[in-house]
């Protein structure tokens, strides 16, 4: 007798949203819409860059959020490595924030390339800021690859945590590249004692930072919960496979069948 019956479908699928995330999502959407309206309609063009200035309402905020994602990843990894705070949840948060950080880093490179082509005249150049941002993107892609390698969950989490902290070292260097070296990329505009942007331009860029941070938080929470659900699915799947094997064993003892004699498939390993 074989027991190939699918497990009973749960009456209600566990989701990743709740009231807080729904409110957060709506607030993020409103903030992004407001940024778009201020950036495209209200904010005037720039004396030097003309209409190209509107890219400043996306590119710096996206880059900052990428740094934020990698920062959360490094802090979560530290929390995992610290024995007193070690928990699978920190590892899940590190992985989720790295993924979101990589997504925003890719957006940074894309928007920067578009802006560069329009203002500098080239899609890409190997100056310190651009090179280090590409390096940052590459090392965190590698970090995500490392998270997918096999081994025990403990060993994988340890390797990933150490790698995340090492990868994060690129962030402050990238951030300070325009101060330390000659670059084609412009220097700091807002994060200085006397910001070199004013009026509607300053208001819009400030709002863009808030809007993209809210978007980051919303995406991160959902991705983190998906990671935890994957864990749950993995554990439940393993428990189910185990119970099926036990049932097969009981059935085989009662009435041997070719299916029961065949080698059982391995339990799925992530």
């Amino acid at each position: 007798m074989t027991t190939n019956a699918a497990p009973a479908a749960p009456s209600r699928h566990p989701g990743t949203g709740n009231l807080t995330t729904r409110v957060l999502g709506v607030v993020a959407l409103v903030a992004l819409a407001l940024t778009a309206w201020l950036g495209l309609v209200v904010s005037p063009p720039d004396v030097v860059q003309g209409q190209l200035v509107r890219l400043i309402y996306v590119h710096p905020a996206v880059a900052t959020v990428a740094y934020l994602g990698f920062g959360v990843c490094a802090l979560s990894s530290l929390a995992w490595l610290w024995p007193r705070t070690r928990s699978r949840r920190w590892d899940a948060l590190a992985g989720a924030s790295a993924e979101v950080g990589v997504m925003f880093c890719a957006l940074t490179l894309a928007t920067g390339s578009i802006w560069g082509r329009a203002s500098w005249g080239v899609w890409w150049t190997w100056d310190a800021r651009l090179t280090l941002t590409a390096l940052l993107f590459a090392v965190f892609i590698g970090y995500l690859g490392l998270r997918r390698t096999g081994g025990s969950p403990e060993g994988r989490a340890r390797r990933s945590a150490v790698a995340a902290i090492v990868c994060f070292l690129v962030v402050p260097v990238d951030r300070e590249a325009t101060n330390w070296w000659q670059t084609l990329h412009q220097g700091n505009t807002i994060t200085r004692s006397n910001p070199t942007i004013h009026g509607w331009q300053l208001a819009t860029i400030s709002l863009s930072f808030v809007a993209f941070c809210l978007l980051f938080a919303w995406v991160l929470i959902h991705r983190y919960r998906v990671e935890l659900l994957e864990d749950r699915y993995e554990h439940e799947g393993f428990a189910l496979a185990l119970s099926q094997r036990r049932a097969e064993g009981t059935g085989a003892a009662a009435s041997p069948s070719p299916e029961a004699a065949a080698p059982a498939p391995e339990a799925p390993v992530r």
Partner: protein
Amino acid sequence: MAVDTISPPSQPLRSRRGWLASRRRQVVAGLVILAALGFLAFQGLSNATQYFKTADQAVADKARLGTSQFRLEGTVEPGIRHDPSGTEFDVIANNVSVHVIDSQQPPQLFKVGIPVVLEGHWQGSYYSAFQIMVKHTANYVESHPDRLKSQLPTTATSAP
């Protein structure tokens, strides 16, 4: 009688193979990361320390630079001449001016008073460029029509 007996691998052998496959994936991932890091670090370090030479530095190092390719930085001076073969202009940095002949069309933000980074080399007394990159500053100034209007009365009253 010979019987083809291909039995499934034993459990320790299978787990050993799994371990090897996992280890192989880790090594490949590590090599890919190292290769990416190496390439990017090489590109970055070879360019980052001195991405360009300012006009005065380029003039001071002219003998050493010869006709080798380097990036030149300076602010565009008045007197840009466009013709079908390219663009001619002067760039200045720290009171040292360099005459530039460029063979390509400049980018849209190229104009007098803007800092530029050029790719090219010395060609006798001038710098032969094949690429102009506009280096806009970190300063942003709104251009709106009301600004001049609001300043006009002040200018008119303060005029002698």
